């Protein structure tokens, strides 16, 4: 490829990429602001997963009964608080 051919190829590339970048597009993606409620709903999924893990590990014999009950009560309280706040925000 000669220098002139290279420059022509470069100009064609420039033209194509500029057209691609600035092509009028009305359907560009946008999203609503993430709220605290969205965060809490995500957190709820994580807490459910933590509870599932705890139950599974208990069934697998990793936790003695008293440890399991303590941990489960703590997680359930955390989940209950979270669900309460979700409920409050959804009603507001």
């Amino acid at each position, binding site marked *: 490829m000669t220098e002139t051919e290279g420059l022509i190829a470069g100009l064609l590339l420039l033209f194509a990429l500029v057209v*691609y*970048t600035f092509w009028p597009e009305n359907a560009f993606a946008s999203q609503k602001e*993430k709220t605290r409620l969205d965060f809490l709903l*995500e957190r709820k999924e994580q807490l459910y997963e933590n509870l599932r893990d705890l139950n599974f590990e208990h069934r697998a014999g990793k936790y003695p009964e008293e440890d399991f009950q303590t*941990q489960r009560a703590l997680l359930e309280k955390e989940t209950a608080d979270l669900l309460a706040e979700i409920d*409050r925000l959804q009603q507001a």
Partner: protein
Amino acid sequence: MAALGSFALLIALALAAYNLLAGTIALRLIATGTPARISPERLADTARRAGIAGFYAVTAAAFALVWSAFANDFSITYIVEHSNRALPAPYKFAALWSGQEGSLLLWAWLLGTYGFVLRLRHKTDVKLYAYAGTILAGIQVFFLLILNFAAPPFALLKGTIPDDGNGLNPLLQYPEMVIHPPMLYLGYVGFSVPFAFALGALMMRYPGEKWIHITRAWTMATWLFLTCGIFLGMRWAYAVLGWGGYWGWDPVENASFMPWLTGTAFLHSVMMQERRGMMKSWNVWLIFSTFLLTMLGTLLTRAGLVSSVHAFAQSSIGTWFYVFMGIVLAICIFTYIYQRGHLKTEHHLESLVSRESSFLFNNLVLLTACFVILWGTLFPILSEYVQGTKVTVGAPFYNRVAIPIGLFLLFLTGVGPLLPWRATSFKSIRRNFVLPVIALWATVIVCLAVGVRPWVNGAFSSGNFYALVAFAVGVAVFVAVLSEFLRGAHVIARQTGRNLLSATWLLTRRNTRRYGGYIVHIGVVVVVLGLAGSAFNRNVESEMGVHDAMHIGPYTLECTGFTQDSNANYDSEYAILNVTKGGKTLFQMTPEKRAYHLGGGDQPQTMVAIHSVPMWDLYVVYEGMNPDTGQPIIKAFLNPLVGWIWAGLVIMVLGTLIALAPSLSPATAALRVPVARQVAPEVALKGGD
């Protein structure tokens, strides 16, 4: 092609600069809600498209360079310096990263590729991706500025165009070298993505930890690439440098190892943030440090800052890197100080004996190792600055510190999975640790019985002691991980009536991340056992004429002849050795010495002959002729368990791939959550502000 390549790089720079500028303005307008003539969302979208277009432009430039190598276009200085007509095709491709300009182009192309994929997936979270894309554009601007103005790969040769090039560095003409640098660079460059997400999430005060979930696959894939890159480099050093080892604590080896250490720490501690909203500041700084260490690694490899067998370039681009790293650090510090209120922890460490604390210890140990290696790597520069003389830190310094640290890490690899989250009782510890502790002491007894003892001829041997500890802890960790699999599989077997094997498979598929991670831990154990084998390396060296023999371990090597060969690329000279064991001929080995016609023909290169079995490697080097006697010199090594290192890598790759696969949807949770109570706002959960 030079004109097209140079033009494409200029276009790529303009597009990356537009991406950075328009993206920053758009995000600022969105954040402040300032009214503008153009919709900020539209402006952000043009910035995103500029990022995608930039990928095409950098691809065109990379293509132009590779094409020039294949077309033997010796009007380009880079092609003259790194290729020649007789160079085999795969190595012509490798010319792209064999020199400084080409490797920087590879960096830019890989960053463009990562950015391309990221920008195509922007609908996952438009705003977060816009922040990450803009930060990546900033990094891309830096590399494209260097490529356009400081280290242009398409610079034309002044004067007469030669008929042939100087050829590729012979040390690089090795199959692993075709994939080792791209793997390493995929790892280096890949850490830009979690870095960009972390910085972006902090800048926009991203509510929650979903950004970690989004970047999880990126981080794991990047870690996998870096791991493979490091191991391929070890394999290359083992097979090409001919000293019988695979890791010499060379500054460039260290440079790749440091981000691996901090990246591994990040992969672990980020789980605490996901599950419990802890360690937020720590994680942010871990990923910031990892990115800066990848930059340092690139600087060490490319700018000739330190002497190394792996540093294939000497140049003055160091100043560019110092300035860039300074700017990045300043932005990180400023953003952290400005937004640190967003990083308040939601929970505190409840017990020193818990999964969280094991992650914390793991992180502290990994960071200590990283600091020690950084200190040793930069010590020659610091000592020259302070004392005026360059003092190099050798392998004994690193081994003295890194081996105990590594063994403690191995210990934590087994302990972590056995500890429950939050807190644990003595009863729980006793229940979970019985089997591994029995396995540990049983291994110690077996090792002592078979002769693996911490003393040699009555004197204490630290190498043997560490090997004994590594074997014992390694087996204990293996048992700990295995017991985790078996416990879970038993539950599933009881629930579903499946056999244990099928239940283990279902268990793994239900939680790929956890059990994939455990498989990686098994891979680490196998690697450590392989490394521990080096305490028992043996070697012999001797001049060998035809029909002479040498003995090493159970093998006898008999020389049956020496021969020479020649092709367009190099002349070679090799010995033919028949290997026998107990009088029975097993196989033939042909260690070789090559003299390349171009690219360093004055320094013959070693091609080691390696015969690998699970127990050890028989590793034979043809060291050339003794100038005094005219006799060929053969050096043979018997390196125990080296094959386990590469097998461990395969297990680690498999585990990471499993961890990357999506888990099966969770079974219905047996939740027993009390009826939601009305709580006052002040006692609401922290985080997500």
